[in-house]
């Protein structure tokens, strides 16, 4: 491959200093007919969409194809607010016009197979695309069989609502239909799962609905396979202040792990107890998305291990698993949390590594950061943030930085964080999809 270093630097400068709207259409649309290389991105969520966009922004001469089955994307972040009624699901949705405008080819289809040796991707529709680099961002797959009696069909009766959209609305409809004094169970799978504080934020949003819609005698029961959870002290403080007596958490050690369900009877069975509920939100255990498993990228626990300098798979060269499907570092503190913020950050690292490689340049310094807000009420937000460095190819968090919101914070901090969460959401949606 011939390298034109000057043009590459120019395009980098353009991407970082000039508004994208001012890059000539000819440059943005430069797609086929060049030899800079081809990138295929599987999955158009936060991670995949960001990777496609940033590769195109950094070097418009690279061919980028995004393969995503859905024409509308529904954000999981903030989707718990649909349950409380504080947010409409349409506010979480976007299409792929932004990607198309940048000159990214968007194919709405499933991926049937990846041939890592031949470096090709074949869609369900039978189209085969070659790649120089493949971004693998399929998100998660549910391990339905891990909970006896649960299945994809049963998820219509006991919604997981852990892929936002139809499932979110299904759970909301069940919440609206439940009687005052009823029980709403949230069953939390063993770690790791996407959005670690998600189930606990959900408990607050569900309680908020109950409190404000004539169901204040109802109860949220969290049956947890784990013995602790993200921002636990902050959540317990918030639950108590906002929804006293409405939310109960049962740890794994206290028989919280749901092992079996009877979907028709609305029953959950833990080791020692039977729980009857009006609504059961059954979140099954996760693994990396099916295509990542099928491509042989996953470890024994079902996740794609990556090299943190580049986000490249440790199994197959030139494949970059990003977002919820990947794992790096050691649990519990060094791992990459499965959040939208992290997925976007990983996408930018992968994009930088791919663009440098296709241009024959040295790998740029990777930067990782995570910010994760949870909203317990419209004026009550909390967060956890972490800054990471890559040292000797190890992914480590900077101990002096990051952490959770202070437990003794004044009320204004909680309000600020709730407002910043919305501002964060608007910016990440634009960063990934606009």
């Amino acid at each position, binding site marked *: 491959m011939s390298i034109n270093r000057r043009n590459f630097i120019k395009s*980098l400068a353009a991407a*970082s*200093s*000039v*508004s*994208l709207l001012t890059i000539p259409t000819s440059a943005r649309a430069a797609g086929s007919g060049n030899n800079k290389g081809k990138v295929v991105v599987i999955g158009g969520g936060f991670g995949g969409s960001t990777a496609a966009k*940033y590769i195109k922004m950094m070097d418009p001469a690279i061919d980028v194809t995004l393969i995503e089955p859905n024409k509308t994307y529904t954000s999981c972040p903030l989707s718990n607010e649909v349950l409380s009624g504080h947010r409409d699901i349409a506010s979480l949705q976007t299409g792929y016009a932004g990607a198309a405008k940048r000159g990214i080819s968007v194919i709405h289809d499933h991926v049937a197979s990846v041939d890592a040796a031949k470096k090709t991707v074949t869609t369900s529709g039978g189209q085969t695309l070659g790649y120089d680099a493949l971004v693998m961002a399929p998100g998660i797959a549910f391990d339905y069989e891990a909970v006896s009696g649960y299945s994809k069909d049963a998820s219509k009766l006991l919604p997981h609502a852990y892929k936002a959209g139809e499932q979110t609305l299904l759970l909301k409809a069940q919440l609206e239909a439940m009687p005052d004094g009823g029980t709403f169970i949230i069953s939390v799978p063993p770690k790791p799962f996407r959005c670690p504080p998600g189930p606990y934020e959900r408990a607050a949003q569900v309680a908020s609905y109950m409190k404000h819609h004539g169901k204040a005698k109802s109860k949220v029961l969290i049956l947890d396979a784990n013995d602790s959870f993200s921002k636990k002290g902050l959540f317990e403080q918030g639950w108590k202040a906002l929804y006293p007596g409405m939310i109960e958490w049962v740890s794994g050690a206290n028989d919280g792990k749901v092992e079996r369900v009877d979907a028709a009877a609305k029953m959950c069975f833990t080791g020692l107890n039977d729980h009857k509920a009006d609504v059961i939100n059954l979140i099954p255990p996760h693994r990396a998305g099916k295509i990542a498993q099928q491509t042989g990228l996953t470890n024994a626990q079902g996740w794609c291990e990556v090299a943190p300098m580049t986000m490249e798979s440790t199994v197959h060269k030139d494949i970059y698993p990003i977002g919820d499907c990947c794992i790096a570092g050691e649990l519990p503190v*060094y791992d990459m949390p499965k959040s939208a*913020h992290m997925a*976007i*950050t990983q996408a*930018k*690292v992968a994009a*930088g590594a791919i663009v440098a490689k296709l241009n024959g340049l040295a790998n*740029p*310094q*990777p*930067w*990782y*950061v995570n*910010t994760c807000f949870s909203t317990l009420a419209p004026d009550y937000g909390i*967060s956890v*943030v*972490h*800054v*990471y*460095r890559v*040292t*000797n190819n*190890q992914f*480590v968090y*900077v*101990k*002096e*930085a*990051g*952490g959770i*919101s202070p437990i003794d914070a*004044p*009320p*204004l*901090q909680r*309000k*600020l*964080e709730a*407002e*910043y969460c*919305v*501002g*964060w*959401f*608007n*910016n*990440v949606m*634009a*960063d990934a999809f*606009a």
Partner: protein
Amino acid sequence: MKRALLFCAALSAAPLIHAAEPDVAGLVKSCNNCHGVNGVSVGHSMPSIGGLSETYLLNIMTQWKTGERFSAVMGRLLKGYTDQEIAALATHYSKQPWVPAAQTLDVKLVAQGKDAIDRCSSCHGDTGVPDEDDTPRLTGQWAQYMELELAKYRDDALKMPHKKMRTNAKKLDEADVAAAAAHYASQKK
């Protein structure tokens, strides 16, 4: 123990590696998540930062890092970066063009704002263009963000620096907080 050692290595090596000219091109991309591409935010509560003065940006980030100034989130993040990296970020964002926020404002509030900014204009100017480099530019900034900043200065529970700003913010009538923010948000230059 091994982890702890790696950690020390990371922290002590970082300033050496980045002492000359930190490579913040990738770091800047991670700031986009909340502050938008080129520092142009589309979230009403998040400030646009592209085109603000280098002195102001460096000051405020340093105050957050040291804890001299309250922050809900930024301090926790900035403790993860070296002083050189923070300086490079300030330089980078100061060189971006300022793009006024695309926002819809209440016409009545904007009109009320003209009188509400009496206490603000001596430092921030009539249109939000300050005389001094260490004062933030307010012209066309997000109104909601400015209201929240005023709320921070008006709340004694938060540790905010700058006595003059605290005093003046507290003297504003409650009804004038949104009006003053709307006034500056409505300015084009």
